[in-house]
């Protein structure tokens, strides 16, 4: 505790005045020769002890009055929290919530703008030499600048660059991040300020264990930080959001129909009879629709579109609503439209006769228009080569490599395939009567370390014998490649008869179990898949020609192979739509893309990214995708590649923590709650300089005077 007018504290010596008066009164009494002593005596007999106690009480109060008054005039300041001089520089971390709920408009101004304003005021008020770090908590917590800086002006300028619209905050992670940064800062005074709208959905998922962990983290810090919660939020009842756009992940070719399903949600209690939806492709409005959105309900609407030109396209669905949060009324997605999918068929048993070669049926199934001489063009472009022709050049042009009854490969070819798969390629392996099982199992499976998902075991079934053919189990297919067969209108896989196949062995204990796409009636896996590096390998237990099964003769063969190959091709392509915060990955064909590329981020800034060779391809990775929105990569061929960083719509539920919960949260963290920078400044002053208590003391003086008066009256009352 310190005294601002310390000299006046000596006035406390005035406590002696009532004491002296009391003593003087006792010593300078008047003497009265009194007759009615018998009346006085009886009063004294009953009241003497009481009167003495009352006199002591009154004397104490009267002595206390000048003491408290002097103390009040001396302007005492409580400095219980203060460990350093008031103007000592501080190390401060501001956790700034820039999740998209902060875009909510309050009186025409976004909450984020207010948050930035408050943060700027707080930063501007810091003592010289203070160390500052600002962490944006939207999505993943990310510091505004890589390291804390000592320049408040620079930080104030940087604050103005903070953009909103980010995904849901993880308050616990943000606090952990902030405390972690604070632990590495230099000053002996540490402040952590969390500026947020304190959205209920964010805190509801924060478990008590996480909070306890944070509490332990705070307690374990050598210098305990002061924590302040600056609440800017109030609950908003009405809000609708376009939650997501869903469409098939299968590779899409030009002029193919694509169905896009928009999911909408009404978070409020007000029902919308007709929400107008706008569907846009590459910024141009295509069509519109209206949808009824009952209170607290979800709804879906379907848009069908077609892209005449191959390339990367942007689609968007926007709901025209007048709610206070406009950010979530629009949802975007990138749709890659392929010009062609290069598929290399490695034929292990070629033939000059029609449909006698190992890959002949496959080539027809993958390029039906070409073989049918139709006007339409195939999405897939096949190239059939012999096993000896499998080299780097062949792999460069291929999205999918198909090994059909290939007896064995050279070691360098295996190495090449490994690199190809590691860079995100896809490999489809069919068995056949020519494959060298021992080589496959030893080299390609290699006890789980190789490319092959499972080892080949013995041949099962037989052709032309008495063995009964087996059928594919018609189950519910989980894999995207076979999903269409869940609808029987698209064909029934069980129509095909498999006469001969390889039984597949067990996966290596060291490797993950492969995913079984389809099984035979005997339970033997027919189609299995596993990841290898960035790519994937699909292994089929039977041959792709008509020798071991009648599959190529069945109508389902074409869609099966088309789906399998296009799905593999699209799986090999990194997603164009990914959760914000995950790295943006673009795979460019060949290793020739060595020149830097331009990347435009959602804030409009242009960055230069350098592709790196991976396998037989080039890969661009960009990790700074915290900000949701469209990232556009412009390659050497000037064709833009769009990527959309998406966020979940949990932030669209605009219910905020009420005052009670914020108080309990503050109590749990040992924090103080404020609602503005001005309040924080007052709180900070009290923390730095202590809290002036002269008002309390003045009230105390008045209270003592009143008490003295009341007791004086009370004690004078009759007591006989």
């Amino acid at each position: 505790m310190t005294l601002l007018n310390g000299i006046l504290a000596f006035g406390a010596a005035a406590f002696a005045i009532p004491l002296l008066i009391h003593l003087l009164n006792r010593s300078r009494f008047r003497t009265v020769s009194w007759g009615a002593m018998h009346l006085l005596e009886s009063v004294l007999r009953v009241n003497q002890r009481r009167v003495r106690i009352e006199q002591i009480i009154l004397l104490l109060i009267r002595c206390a009055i000048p003491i408290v008054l002097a103390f009040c005039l001396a302007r005492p300041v409580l400095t219980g929290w203060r460990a350093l001089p008031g103007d000592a520089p501080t190390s401060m971390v501001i956790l700034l919530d820039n999740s998209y709920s902060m875009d909510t408009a309050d009186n025409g101004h976004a909450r984020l703008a207010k948050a930035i304003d408050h943060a700027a005021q707080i930063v501007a008020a810091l003592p010289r030499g203070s160390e500052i770090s600002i962490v944006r908590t939207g999505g993943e917590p990310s510091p505004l600048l890589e390291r804390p800086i000592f320049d408040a002006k620079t930080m104030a300028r940087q604050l103005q660059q903070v953009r909103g619209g980010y995904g849901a905050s993880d308050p616990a992670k943000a606090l952990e991040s902030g405390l972690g940064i604070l632990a590495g800062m230099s000053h002996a005074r540490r402040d952590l300020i969390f500026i947020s709208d304190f959205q209920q959905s964010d805190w509801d998922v924060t478990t008590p264990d996480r909070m306890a962990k944070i509490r332990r983290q705070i307690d374990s810090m050598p210098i305990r930080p002061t924590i302040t919660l600056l609440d800017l939020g109030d609950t908003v009842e009405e809000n609708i959001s376009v939650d997501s756009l869903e469409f098939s992940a299968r590779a899409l070719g030009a002029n193919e129909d694509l169905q896009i399903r928009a999911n909408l949600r009404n978070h409020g209690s007000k029902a919308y009879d007709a929400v107008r939806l706008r569907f846009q492709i590459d910024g141009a409005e295509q069509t519109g629709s209206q949808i009824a959105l009952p209170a607290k309900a979800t709804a879906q609407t379907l848009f069908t579109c077609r892209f005449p030109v191959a390339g990367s396209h942007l689609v968007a669905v926007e709901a025209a609503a007048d709610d206070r949060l406009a950010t979530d009324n629009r949802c975007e997605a990138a749709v890659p439209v392929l010009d062609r999918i290069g598929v290399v068929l490695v034929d292990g048993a070629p033939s000059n006769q029609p449909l006698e070669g190992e890959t002949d049926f496959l080539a027809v199934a993958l390029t039906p228009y070409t073989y049918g001489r139709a006007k339409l063009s195939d999405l897939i472009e096949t190239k059939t080569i012999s096993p000896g022709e499998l080299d780097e050049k062949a792999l460069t042009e291929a999205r999918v490599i198909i090994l059909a009854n290939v007896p064995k490969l050279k070691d360098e070819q295996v190495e090449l395939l490994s690199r190809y798969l590691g860079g995100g390629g896809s490999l489809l392996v069919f068995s056949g009567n020519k494959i060298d099982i021992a080589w496959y199992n030893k080299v390609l499976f290699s006890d789980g370390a190789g490319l092959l998902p499972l080892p080949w075991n013995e041949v099962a079934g037989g052709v032309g014998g008495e063995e009964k053919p087996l059928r594919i189990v018609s189950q519910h297919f989980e894999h995207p490649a076979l999903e269409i067969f869940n609808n029987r209108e698209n064909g029934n896989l069980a129509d095909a008869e498999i006469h001969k196949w390889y039984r597949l062995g067990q996966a290596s204990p060291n490797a993950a179990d492969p995913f079984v796409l389809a099984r035979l009636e005997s339970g033997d896996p027919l189609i299995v898949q596993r990841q290898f590096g960035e790519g994937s390998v699909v292994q089929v237990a039977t041959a792709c020609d008509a020798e071991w099964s009648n599959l190529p003769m069945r109508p389902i063969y074409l869609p099966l192979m088309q789906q399998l190959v296009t799905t593999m091709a699209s799986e090999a392509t990194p997603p164009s739509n990914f959760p914000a915060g995950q790295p943006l990955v673009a795979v460019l064909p060949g290793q020739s893309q060595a020149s830097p590329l331009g990347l435009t981020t959602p804030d409009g800034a242009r960055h230069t990214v350098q592709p790196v060779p991976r396998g037989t391809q080039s890969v661009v990775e960009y990790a700074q995708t915290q900000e949701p929105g469209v990232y556009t990569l412009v390659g050497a061929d000037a064709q833009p590649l769009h990527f959309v960083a998406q966020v979940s719509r949990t932030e669209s539920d605009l219910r905020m923590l009420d005052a009670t919960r914020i108080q309990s949260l503050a109590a749990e963290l040992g924090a103080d709650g404020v609602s503005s920078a001005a309040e924080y400044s007052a709180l900070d002053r009290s923390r730095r300089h202590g809290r002036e208590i002269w008002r309390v003391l003045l009230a105390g003086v008045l209270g003592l005077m009143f008490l003295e008066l009341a007791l004086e009256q009370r004690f004078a009352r009759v007591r006989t």
Partner: protein
Amino acid sequence: MEGFCSGLHRSPHKGFSVEFKEHRPYVRGDEVRSIDWKIFGKTDRLYIREHEQETNLRSTILLDTSGSMGYCGVRAGGISKHHYAVRLTACLAYLMLEQQDSVGLVTFDSEVRRYIPPRGRASHLRAILDELGKSRPQVETELAQVFHELAAKIHRRSLVIIISDCFGDVDQLLKALARFRHARHDMIVFQIWDPDELDFPFRQWTQFESLETPAHRRLVDPAHLRQAYLENLKRFRDQLTAGCHRHRIDLVPMTTDRPYAEALASYLAIRRRLK
């Protein structure tokens, strides 16, 4: 009234006197000399002639000269309770002697200091005034004991006037007064108060020193005791008033800032009622 000297007061006794009252038939035992022989001569019947006798008032004033009567407050104009009582006594004595009543005086504190028997002569006033002039308030009071003693001493029925502050045990005092009443004395008690004793006006620290026992001192903050004192005083006065009323004793409270005329008026009013 009953008295030896004829005065203004009517005597309850019938006897020899010039004031004829009535005739009544003679009964055995009547004095022969009371027979009205003129009536006998006319009617041959014996009648007794009765006369109404006028007697003087026989009164005794008991003056308290204890130390507590020496108190003199500021508002009393320098007149202590004792001075006030002495003057009141002198007035009453003069008034009664002027009415040819007999008046006596007893001064007392813890015991009877001086007893002047009732006389009706005008020169008796001198003796009373001399005694009053010599009296000084001193020592303690023992009202009950003194009154018991005096009740035994005053045989003839008379008017007993007590001038005192009546400080002491109320029950004992009332018992003593009851004894006067038992002896069929009429009684008037002039209770003398100083205004200070009635409102306890002291504020600053005060050492109260007993007038009766000077060694008895009490240093107190009067402000804290005032209410309790006043309550105690009220209870004392209520007890005394109720007791006097019960014994049909006239209690006349007097404060030393009031004129004597009020006291005398009170006395005369009471006498008028007694006639």
